[in-house]
Structure formats: C-alpha cells, structure tokens
C-alpha cells in the first residue's frame, strides 16, 4: 500500500497537469482566433473610412466618372481583357483571371474605372478581347457618347 500511493499520486498529478496544459492551449487558440476576427473586422472598417475619404478628395461627386462592366452575353464569348479609352486616351486596362471572368458571367458587375471628367461632351471607347466559339480570337468594341451606355453589341473585328 505504501508503494502504491505515491505512484497513484504521481499519475493523478500528471493527469491534472495534462488537462491544464490542454485547456491553456485551447484558451490560447481561441483567444488568437478571436483576435484575428477582431483585427480583420477593424481593418475592413478602416478600409471603408479610407475609401470614403479618398473618394471625397480625389473624385468629388460633381466630376466623378465611373465605368462599370457587366456581361449579359457570356455564353459564346470568354473575356480575356478590356481596354477603356476616354477622348482617345487609355485610362484603364484589365486582364481577367479565370475567377474574375466567371464572376462577370455569374452576374457580377465590375467597376472598371473611377476618375474625373469635366462637364461637356466626351467619347468613351471600350475594346474587349476574348475567345469566341471554337476558341477563335475576337476583338469587339463599343463607342458611345452617352453616360449610361450598356453594352449589348458584339462585333467581329
């Protein structure tokens, strides 16, 4: 009996210490996970405030000009890249990844360009490069002078 007791005691202590180590590790993990969630949230809120400030300073509402792109004819045309020209000056170029092209096909709308334009008449031209049926290369373009120009034309170059 004398020999058994210390052995049991050591076993008991080791079980207790293991348990406390486990819970400390779990606590640590859970705290880290919470801290990560908090910092993600805080940085996204910071991002929001900085975006608003940037837009207010760089692109005031009275001169702000945006170009949005959406696709309603994605079935036979796979988009590779887009170039935007305003008054014959290239202002935006975008090369699409597979995911981005897929996002457009699924109904997403991309803000392709954000800038400033003085009031008056301007010309905007958009060039679309991609692949059509049988993987043939296509170059399509639209040209317009209206503000709300929604593309639904496809022309073979």
């Amino acid at each position, binding site marked *: 009996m004398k020999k058994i007791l210390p052995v049991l005691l050591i076993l008991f202590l080791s079980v207790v210490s293991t348990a406390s180590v486990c819970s400390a590790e779990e606590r640590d993990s859970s705290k880290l996970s919470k801290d990560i*969630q908090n910092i993600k949230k805080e940085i996204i809120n910071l991002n929001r405030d900085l975006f608003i400030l940037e837009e207010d300073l760089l692109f005031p509402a009275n001169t702000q000009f945006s170009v*949005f792109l959406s696709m309603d004819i994605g079935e036979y045309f796979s988009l590779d890249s887009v170039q935007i020209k305003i008054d014959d000056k290239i202002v935006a170029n975008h090369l699409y990844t597979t995911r981005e092209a897929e996002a457009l096909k699924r109904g997403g709308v991309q803000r392709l360009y954000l800038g400033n334009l003085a009031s008056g008449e301007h010309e905007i031209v958009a060039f679309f490069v991609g692949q059509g049926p049988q993987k043939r290369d296509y170059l399509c373009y639209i040209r317009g002078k209206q503000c709300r120009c929604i593309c639904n034309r496809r022309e073979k170059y």
Partner: protein
Amino acid sequence: MASSAAVYAIEEKNTESNIEDLFYKNTLYHYYSGDYISALTRILVNEKRSLVDTDKDRTKILQGGIYLAYGLDYDAKKIFEFLNTESLDEELKNVIWFYLGRDFYDNFDYKNAAESLERITKDASYSNKLEKFNILSNSYVYTSQISKLENLLNNENIDEKDKVYIKFNLSIAYLRNNQPLKGKKLLDEISDLKVKNVIQSTISDKAKLHLANIAFNNKKYKESIDYINEMNANGLYSDNAIYLSALSHSIIGNTRKAYSLLNTLKVREERSIYKYYSVLLIARILEKNGNFQQALNVLNDGLRSISISKQELHALLEKIRKDFFLTGLSKTKDGDIIVANKEYKKLVDELIFSKRFASHYNNYIDLLKLRKNINYWKTQIPQLRIMLGERDRHFKEKRSKVSTTKFIRSKADYTERLAHLKSQYSLVQKKEDAHLLYSEQEIEHEDDLSYVEKKVNRLSRQEDLSDIEYKVRIMKGLNYWNAASDYKPRIWDVEAGIKEAEAELDTLNKRIVSLQRAAGSEFNYAKHANNIRILKERIDRLSLLLDNTIVRLKNKLILVASEELDERFKGIDAYYKAFKYDIARVSDRVFLENK
C-alpha cells in the same frame, strides 16, 4: 477553414443589366472573384453612403455570407439572427439557412448543419440543391441517421446520376450500423455503374475497395482480388488497393504476383505509408519462401531508406522550429498565395489536409493580404494630404473668380422677353387679330406703308392720288393676309417661345443660386485634415496590432506543423523499429542457415 468555404449567393440570372442593382452586383463581382476584403469594403462604403439597392435584405444576407466566407462567423451570425424573422422573404430565408448549414458543417457541428439545411423550402438552383444534398448526406452519416439518408436517396428532385454520392454514404451508414447485406448491395450497385466523370469514377473505386475489404475480412481472397482488378490502377485509392491485393495474393500462395505488386508500390510516392508496408511484406514473403539472405538484403535496403527519411524529417523539423517556413510566398494568376519554396510547398501541400493546420494557414494568408492593404494606405496618406492641400487651393482660387453678374443680366433679358411673349399671347387670345402676330419684317413693312399713307393724306387734294391710295391699301391687305394665313403656326411659335424662355429662366435661377452658395460656402479643410490625422493614427495602431498577431500566428503555425511532423516522425520510427526487429530475426535465420 472558413476561408475555403465555397461561394454561394442567390444566383443572378444573366439578363439585361439593371442599373438599380449596381452596388449589389459590384459586391457580388468581388465576392465571386474571391476578393472578400474588397467585397466587404464595398458593402460597408455603400452602407455608409446610403447607396443601398432596392432590396436591403438581400444585400444584408450577402454581407453575412461574405463574413462567413472570410472567417468572421460571429458577425455573420449576428446578421442572420437579426434578419431571420417571419416577415423575411422565403427565398432569402432559404439563403440564410444554406449559409448557416454550411458553416455548422465546416465547424463539424453535423446535427445543426443537417437541421439548418432541412429548413430550406426551395433551392436557388440545381447546383445549390446538389451541394445541399451532399452536405446533408455527409451529416447524416456522421450522426447515423439512416432513415433520413434513405429518404434522401428516394428524393425525386435529384437526377439518378447525381445520387451516387448519397448512395455511397448510405452504404457506409448500413455497414457501420451492422447491416452488412444492405450496405454490400448498394456498394455492388455503385461498382456496376457505367462511370461518366472523374467524381463518379472515384466513388465507384471507393465502393470497390470497400467490397474488397469486406471480402478480405471474410477470407474470400480471390473475390477481394477481383474487386481490386476492376479498379482504376492509378486512381486515388490505388496504393491501398494494390497493397490489399498483394496481401491476398501472398496469403493464397501466389507470391510471385504479390512480389511484383509490392515492387510497383515500393517506387511510388516518397512519403506514402504503403512504401514501408510493401518493403516489410516483400521481405516477409521472401522469408516465408526460405530466401533468408534475399529477405535480409531487402530489409537492410528498406532500413537505409527509412533512416534517410527519418534524418530528412528530423532536419525538416529542426529547420521549422528555428526558421519560419512560409517566407517567400508568391501569388498565382488567380490571386491565390502559394508557397514559393519547393521543399516547403510539398510539406504545406501535405499539411493542408490537417484541418487544424489549414485553418491557421488560411488565416495567415488573410492576414498577409491585410498587411499588404495597410501598407498601401500608409503610402497613400501623404498623397491624400497633398490632394487635400491642392483641393483647398483650387477651391479658394475658384471662389475668388465666382461672379453672378453675367447671369443676372441674362436673367433680366429673359424675363423681359417672357413678359413680352406672354402679353402678346394674351392679346391674341382676346382679339384674335393677325396684326398682333406680325413678324419684325411685316411690322416694318406696315410702318412703311402707314408712313406713305400719311404723306399722301397731307398732300394737296387737287392731284388724283387715288391710284397710290389704292396700291397702299392693297399692300396693307396683302401683309395682313400673309399673317392671317399663317395664324396657327405663329401662335404655336409664341407658345414654344414662352416655354423656352421659362426653361432658360429656371436654369439661370439655379445657376445663380449655386454660384451664390459656392461664393458663400467654405471647403472644410480642417475637417478633412483632422480626418486624415485620425485615420493615420488608426493605421499605425492597427499596423502594430497586425504585426503582433502575425507573429503569434507564425508561432502557432510552427507549433502545429512541428506537432504534425512529430506524429509522422513517431510513425516512421515505429516502422524503423519493425525493420530492426525483422532484421534481427532474419539475421538469426541467415546465421543458422550458414552454420
């Protein structure tokens, strides 16, 4: 784990673009592209600017979904709980239940996952329905709900070809719940399927391997070999299948076949457990056939190879404990971050199967992206300050040039013109006299004729002037007839003139008011400057906090990776001991044989 959640939202139909949904669809674009930071930022910017689309609830649900995908579970659930009321549209409620179900599933809460998904009354699309049914069937297997699995299999809303996975899950549930006959029957049905794609082929292989295992456990070795022979020789489960086949062959005495199968396995994947299994088994077959020296050679080769693996793993462990193994991450074309170092890439590719490692790793990648984001804003702050100064200067310059004089003069002209036209119109309405609609030329002509008439009247009546008087009257009559024949179009012209003058006056009034406002207003430089200062402080504070969190996460990743490798080291060590034991035994046999 949460970051790897698949993308889900109410499927947008690719109909003509609707300008009203611009903000929602712009967020969708970022979400579908996997750029959760931009998607969330866009939603929050739109919310703060009150640029919310027609359907507020739909935007909120999307926000919840992005929070979930980005690992912000708490915020997501807060949104869903708030929205999930009786008044919410049924379709949107279904989306919430889907998001919640998948989140519970990702967090291994299979009971709640199943309960959430069961609440969906209508699926957004067939692909969503299929995903829901697959998650449900997995959850039912984990919670042993056989009857619900049977109901899923009998569901008429899914195509028969898409039921293979559910069928497989049901067979596993039967086998786990002591219903081997039912389980085997379903596995046989799956293995008899004519496979049409990679997924079906993999499930069919998995079913055949299960059937082979059942046959092996029932000592039906030939049947087990037959099932394996039907499997894809290079499929996902081929290592396991070849080993099982070699075992069956060695038991039934077909040692040559077993030997050749094990040799194919020996040269396979470096860290595959079957590599060591197969070497041990080859040596035991040789030993069983009395080729002791050959068996000893095989075992010694194996021991050398395992010692090298042990040393390599040990070195890797030491390296990971000293050094951080995720440095030098690079970006793929799709924006994903991958490990650039080849040695570590292989390790991460293996470790990513551990859910514990994957969860920390995904968070680490997210934090690195946030680090990049913060660094961008750090460089932008000086630019914003310059821009603020420029705008203030420009505003002051412009204000000094503001003058309303020109517009006020123009306004007076138009007011006068309008008054004239209105009075002309009112007179015409009262008298219906074509005189009132004379053009400037006609008025001039009339005046000339009247002048001639007066002159004639003043002249001596001795002369005969009746001819001239007659001509003047005729010409006056013609002038009047000209105006009268054009009566209606001339009235319309007056009406159009009134409208035009009114519109012009309206524009001028607005312009004057806006200029007066501009002249009297101030560009709020101080407010913006203060805002920039506060934001700079926030950037600095969060930058420090982020660095600190990244260091903590790095340490955690090192710990998790070394623990995973430790486990592997223990596994290899067990093989090492098994090899040592076999070498000792076979050496004795060789010694006795030589003696």
